[in-house]
């Protein structure tokens, strides 16, 4: 049934395109119900498969000539991310309720993107995964280029080229793995158990990992992220930061690390102080954490602050992956979920609640508007989102960063201190943004031009949805942990575990 998340989204896209008449309401409502159906299916699937076992959904031959199958399956990690996609999709539509230009196209592209994202998370055939991964690229371009703001065309092109260049590397890795494994199958399960030669893994791993990590915003390939996020319309930034960056991280884990675990082994020599890819990528991840946070601290554009914060938070995902221990990996997956929700919320506040009303994102200008008093709901939402984002206990971010940090203590003790520094800078920029945007002291009283329409019902609904998600998973982490941990313990990741114990 889970496969229907994909089909429904694509069908929804078609339905929206051919929605009758000029009325935009039909398109909106159709899109909303499509996304809701996806979320519903995801929730049902999680309830049914609460132990996170690997379950095959569909498996049928696709290109028998090459042994490629149409194989959809889900384990706990997939389910976690499918759930995230569902939540983010619904929230995104709620926050784009005020789109007035080319409404049908907007929601159609949006749903295509959602469907592709579901597809990536559910694919268990490598080529199929790649196909969905690529399908997701094009809607991103148009969403940003048509409905975006600051330097939209540049940002959209940059984003697409980065993603596509990354996926070129991935494709090279996939083809290489396919050939080495005898050119008979691209089934992920089969490949996970195939004994790839260590020397092959040693170069295939970085190829594929970097390819995916580009989309996960790994430093120094992150530069598409802030510009892309800033330019994108609210719903697209929510999806970009919330879900699309997770595609990259998911690929890193599901493909690069699961198939080529020995690529993380020691090289046997040291170059520039590094002894293995594990160390290289861990250092890049930590740099990303600190760098993203630092740059966010000095941004004037509100959206850029959030954009760079995404780079920083995705650094935690990559760092968690590179710890190679169970708790670090589960932290990484948890962070994928958590950041998906939180980034969505942050972008919703910045893009929809604030920008659509004030038409400025300049923090200095915003500090002259007493936003905290004019739209208190936005202020409270942003405060909650910031708290979740900096990883205060009680929010999902805490559980995630906690695990990543524990894992890092084990693998790279000193890096956990640097990551801690990153968190601190993160706290600083969140606080700065909160103060400047909502509690600016420069303006004491509202001037007549500062009369903003009140927060609408869809906005409230979307905000509640995301806030509840982050708090529930923050207070009751077992909800996701029981999905994630058994999957990490499954036979699929055996190679990774064996490598870690060595």
């Amino acid at each position: 049934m889970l496969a229907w998340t994909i089909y429904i989204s694509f069908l929804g896209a078609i339905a929206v395109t051919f929605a009758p008449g000029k009325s935009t309401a039909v398109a909106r409502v159709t899109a909303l119900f499509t996304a809701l159906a996806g979320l519903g299916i995801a929730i049902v699937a999680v309830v049914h498969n609460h132990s996170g076992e690997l379950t095959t959904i569909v498996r049928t031959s696709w290109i028998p000539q090459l042994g490629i199958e149409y194989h959809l399956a889900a384990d706990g990690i997939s389910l976690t991310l499918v759930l995230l996609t569902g939540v983010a999709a619904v929230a995104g539509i709620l926050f784009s309720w005020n789109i007035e230009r080319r409404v049908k196209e907007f929601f159609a592209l949006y749903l295509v993107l959602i469907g592709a994202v579901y597809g990536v998370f559910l694919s268990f055939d490598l080529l199929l995964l790649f196909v969905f991964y690529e399908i997701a690229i094009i809607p991103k371009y148009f969403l940003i280029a048509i409905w975006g703001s600051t330097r939209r065309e540049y940002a959209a092109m940059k984003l697409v080229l980065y993603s596509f260049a990354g996926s070129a590397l991935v494709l090279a890795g996939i083809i290489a793995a396919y050939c080495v494994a005898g050119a008979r199958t691209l089934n992920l399960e089969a490949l996970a158990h195939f004994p790839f030669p260590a020397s092959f893994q040693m170069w295939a791993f970085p190829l594929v990992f970097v390819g995916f990590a580009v989309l996960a915003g790994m430093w120094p390939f992150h530069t598409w992220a802030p510009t892309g996020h800033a330019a994108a319309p609210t719903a697209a930034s929510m999806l970009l930061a919330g879900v699309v960056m997770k595609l990259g991280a998911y690929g890193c884990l599901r493909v690069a690390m699961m198939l080529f675990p020995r690529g993380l082994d020691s090289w046997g020599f040291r170059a520039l102080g590094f002894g293995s890819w594990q160390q290289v990528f861990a250092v890049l991840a930590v740099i990303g954490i600190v760098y993203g946070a630092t740059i966010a601290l000095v941004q004037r554009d509100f959206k850029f602050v959030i954009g760079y914060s995404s780079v920083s938070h995705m650094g935690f995902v990559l760092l968690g992956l590179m710890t190679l221990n169970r708790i670090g990996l589960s932290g990484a997956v948890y962070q994928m979920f958590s950041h998906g929700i939180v980034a969505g919320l942050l972008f919703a506040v910045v893009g929809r609640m604030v920008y659509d009303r004030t038409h400025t994102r300049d923090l200095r200008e915003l500090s002259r508007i007493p936003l905290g008093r004019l739209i208190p709901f936005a202020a409270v939402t942003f405060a909650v989102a910031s708290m979740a984002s900096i990883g205060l206990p009680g929010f999902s971010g805490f559980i995630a960063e906690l695990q990543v940090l524990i894992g890092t203590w084990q693998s790279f003790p000193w890096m956990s201190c640097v990551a801690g520094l990153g968190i601190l800078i993160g706290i600083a920029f969140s606080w700065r943004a909160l103060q400047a945007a909502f509690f600016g002291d420069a303006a004491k009283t509202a001037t007549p031009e500062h009369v903003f329409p009140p927060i609408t019902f869809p906005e409230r609904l979307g905000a509640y949805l995301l806030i509840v998600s982050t708090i529930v998973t923050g207070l009751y982490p077992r909800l996701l942990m029981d999905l994630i941990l058994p999957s990490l313990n499954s036979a699929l990741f055996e190679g990774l575990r064996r490598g870690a114990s060595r």
Partner: protein
Amino acid sequence: MSSLFVSRSPVSNFPWLSALTFLPLIGGSAVLLLGRARRSAARLAALTFAAAALAITILLWCRLDPAFGGMQFQEWHSWAPDIGLQYHVGLDGLSLLMLAISSIVVLMSIAASQSDSQNDSKNNPEQGSAYLALLLFLESGLFGTFTALNFLHWFLFWELSLIPAFFLIRLWGGAGRARAATRFFIYTMVGSIILLLAFLAIFLASGTFDFIELARMAQTGQLASAIGQNLHWHQWDAGRITMVLFWGAFLGFAVKTPVVPFHGWLPSAYAEAPSETTMALTGVLSKMGVYGFLRILLPIFPAQMWRGRTILLWFAVASVVLPAFTAWAQTDLKRIFAYSSINHLGYCILGIVAVARPLGSGPGVAAAKAAALTGVMLQLFSHAITAATLFWFVALLEKRSGGLRGLNDFGGLRRVMPVFSGMMGIALFASLGLPGLIGFPGEFLIFKGAFSLAWWATALALLGLLMTAVFLLTILQRVFSGPLSERWASIPDLTLTERLLLAPGVALIFVMGLYPQLISGMLHGTVMQFVAQVGF
């Protein structure tokens, strides 16, 4: 694991502690909802909830077995076992004392909050329902912090209690509030993160976040061996790693207490926060740091404290002496009391560091330890009551003077407002440690105990005691005596309501000064447990 909890502690079938923790949370939400409709109702509801919390605390006080030193009223639920997170709360004398402090001070703070919108300082928005709700949320966070026995569970409330405090300062503070709140935020967050990192490493080594379990492991030496086995950092030995972790944890609490030189956030935060909030900040929030020292550092790292005692004692002495001098140089009443707060908590740190000493290192050590620990806890209580009362008086003074609170702005007030002057004088003398008032037993016991454990530091700290007397007497002289300026000739004295509200606080100052056994009796079992635990 579960064998730990099969102790002879009275098993309560009603989850009193959870109920107590969530009561203010519910109260705060109720106040928020009510606040939209009716302002006075919100205020009444806030008072009711705070009073109910106090009532439950008194009930617990009555039902606690003072002779038993272990945890009572324990509740234990699995939460997220994979990351060592459990819902584990318990109560011993120390926790109960802290609960009492929290509920009293928050109640005072709510009582003191200004309901009328005719605020003199136009910078200060009305302390409406949101303000009251934040205070109640703060109380909830405090209750959780003081009863939690699992690090993560504790940390959750530790951080959550900060959030209301931030916003209380940020939104209702004085002119420099943005800066003050930012400083407060950054300082405490730095401390928290370092503390968290240290504990994550401990969890990695020991596999548990449970305070009781960790204390047991520390006592038996298992913790050190676990750290040696599981953490391999650059071939450091277990002792060194443990020491690093100790300093990390220390930093977290030192910022919070604060210990000089980590106190940079405090003066501005206390001065810029509305005085009614400062009551809660100084009354309870600063106690969280000392509580951390007692509940976490002392039982888990006694040997490390012993190893680092010279430095730690210097920190303590600095915290006692330097703020006293600084306070002398201040002219803002709130700043003076802020520095005096550091000074008073410095005594606590002194007592705690002195206690970390092997039992067999001299005669009478156990008795001295018991005295010092009892002193520390008494001091916590006394400082909370005194400081909260003092800031209340400042709030009342500010209200009358239109925001003025400088040392040199007043003079001769005792002639026009005798009741005010008399009552505030009592509080000042209590803060100074005059025998017969609440401040005396604590400080006396600390000095008595610490002198035999760490004589030189105690001797140096006496200097601080002296300076405290000096600057507190200066206040008496400048504000209440001397010529009365024309400006204040018609300043009104305390109203009847204010007198009635203040009376319980002043009464406590006398009662607890004369009968400290009321508290120390309740603490007896806990102190003995501590003495045994720290006798590594």
